[in-house]
């Protein structure tokens, strides 16, 4: 399979890339889950002042829940379709050739 040859020309490069890919979704997901929890908790207890300022919209609660949802989505995405294992030499690239999962996340 010609794809395989093209892909295996730089094992090193792809493994470090995979390790980093693993990170970006976890970083976004992690930060947004933390933001979401903090902001929606604050929003649940917002006083009249905060509500008046935001034209009666409980914006902290809604924004917090939305951020939480986005964060969870990224974590789930990363969990369902994990990046290639950075440590093992032989398995790197297997997932690509098997066509498993969403190739766009690697």
């Amino acid at each position, binding site marked *: 399979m010609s794809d395989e040859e093209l892909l295996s020309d730089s094992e090193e490069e792809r493994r470090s890339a995979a390790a980093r890919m693993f*990170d970006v979704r976890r970083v976004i997901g992690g930060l947004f889950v933390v933001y979401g929890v903090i902001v929606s908790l604050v929003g649940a207890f917002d006083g009249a002042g905060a509500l008046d*300022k935001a034209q009666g919209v409980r914006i*902290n609660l809604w924004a917090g829940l939305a951020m939480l949802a986005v964060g969870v989505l990224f974590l789930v995405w990363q969990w369902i379709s994990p990046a290639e294992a950075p440590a093992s030499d032989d398995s790197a690239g297997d997932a690509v050739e098997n066509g498993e999962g969403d190739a766009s996340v690697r």
Partner: protein
Amino acid sequence: MDGGLRLDLNWLDYTLLALYFVTVLGVGFAARRAIKTSVDFFLSGRSLPAWVTGLAFVSANLGALEIIGMAANGAQYGIMTTHYYWIGAVPAMVFLGIVMMPFYYGSKVRSVPEYLRRRFNTKAHLLNAITFAVAQMLIAGVNLYALALVLDALLGWPLWISIIVGAAIVLTYISIGGLTSAIYNEVLQFFVILAGLIPITVIGLVKVGGINGLFDKVRDSDLGEAGLHAWANTGSSDNPLGAHWLGIVFGLGFVLSFGYWTTNFAEVQRALSARNMSAARRTPLIAAYPKLLIPLLTVIPGMIAVVTVQGLGADEGDLVYNNAIPLLMRDLLPNGVLGIAVTGLMASFMAGMAANVSGFNTVFTYDIWQTYVRKERSDDYYIRIGRIATIGGIVVGIGTAFIAAGFSNIMNYIQALFSVFNAPLFATFIVGMFWKRMTAAAGFWSLLSGTVVALATYLLYLGGALPFDTDLEESFWGAGLAFVTVLVVAFVLSRFGQPKPDSELRGLVRGLGGVDLKGDVIAGDAAWYRSPLLLGGIALALSLLFYIPVW
């Protein structure tokens, strides 16, 4: 409320801000461990998937000037500001992805100047590398200055402290993690910016009674009915932007926009770090979709500000148009989302500056140092030079921030920079990529003469010798004259010289073959929804469609 711009941040907002910076620096350290080669440092190992590079592509443009400036334009000109997105960005991004990217990515160049070296000669290469490095430093200074202005206004930090703190943070994460860190943070910033801006639009619209309420109120404001149309009355210059449709289509939509999006290495670099040809071509196309929608978060808040903030549009002080977004944050956001919005704004300033600095360090290291100063050293050596260039670039950026501080309108300053640096480069590219008979000497001399003409136009205008009505008119004419100069010089000189043989131009010039669009495909790239033509076509159709309700 005293009308001042100071935001009332509390411990909660500062916690959210601090969490962001801890995360950003954490990414830098994590990325550092993954860096093994200089390609890793400068181009992220050419390994990133298209959605990451696409979001980084749009985020690199979503800097300080973009958000603050476009909201200000939204307040000042209304709906016509959407021209900067729907005709001034999307067509150029689609052109880059479909037509130009095969030459950039396929020729395996690491930078825009390197393309010029292979297509023309080392003189054209060195000229462009130097002007690019200078332009990036000047623009980095503008971004840094804008960041400092807002820190000063929002948090009460003195200007010089804000400049130095901003520079220190950008320095830390780029120099530690290289481009990977910059790109990852751009993706992260993209989401934080959205999280910060969306609540402003939502609460603002609630306040004015939805989109219909907003349009009714704009009709009654000084902006009036004209502020609600994009193309009406563009047969003359009797419209808020003062622009004829020819000027909008050719000046903004073609010369300025194509020049910016297709030759600005800070942007193109994002696509070069994609993992294969398909992902590289999809990078600007994926970026076009968020770009289509960003007016909702910049132009609409600008219009909300003009109808809700009494007296907005003052010549100076806190009520200048530039403060539209900060004023809405002050008026509408309670602590919590306020902290997110401040974080998003600071993230966007850093995105712009980081894009300039990472573009600068790549071109400095590969195109100037490695090519002309110290050849054939080890990879480690060039990574070290890249880190030193980053530090040097940021120090120079602090200096140019103080230059930018000397201009009363930084948006005009930056437009002038674009007309001088990008328009001649784009013209040279477009001729060189499509006309194989253009000679190497023609490449160098047309680029040089175009740059000189644009610079001379600007300097003569500043000196009062050329009586343009507005700065915007000057940058359009400067860009247009530079474009024509390049075309004329290129055609005349090419008649007298010997073009390079076809064999040397394969993969660099259209019609000679040598560009392999399919060679490096991986599983999934053949899917119909990843076709560049389809993605580009839909983006163009949407940009037309979006104009219809606001014709």
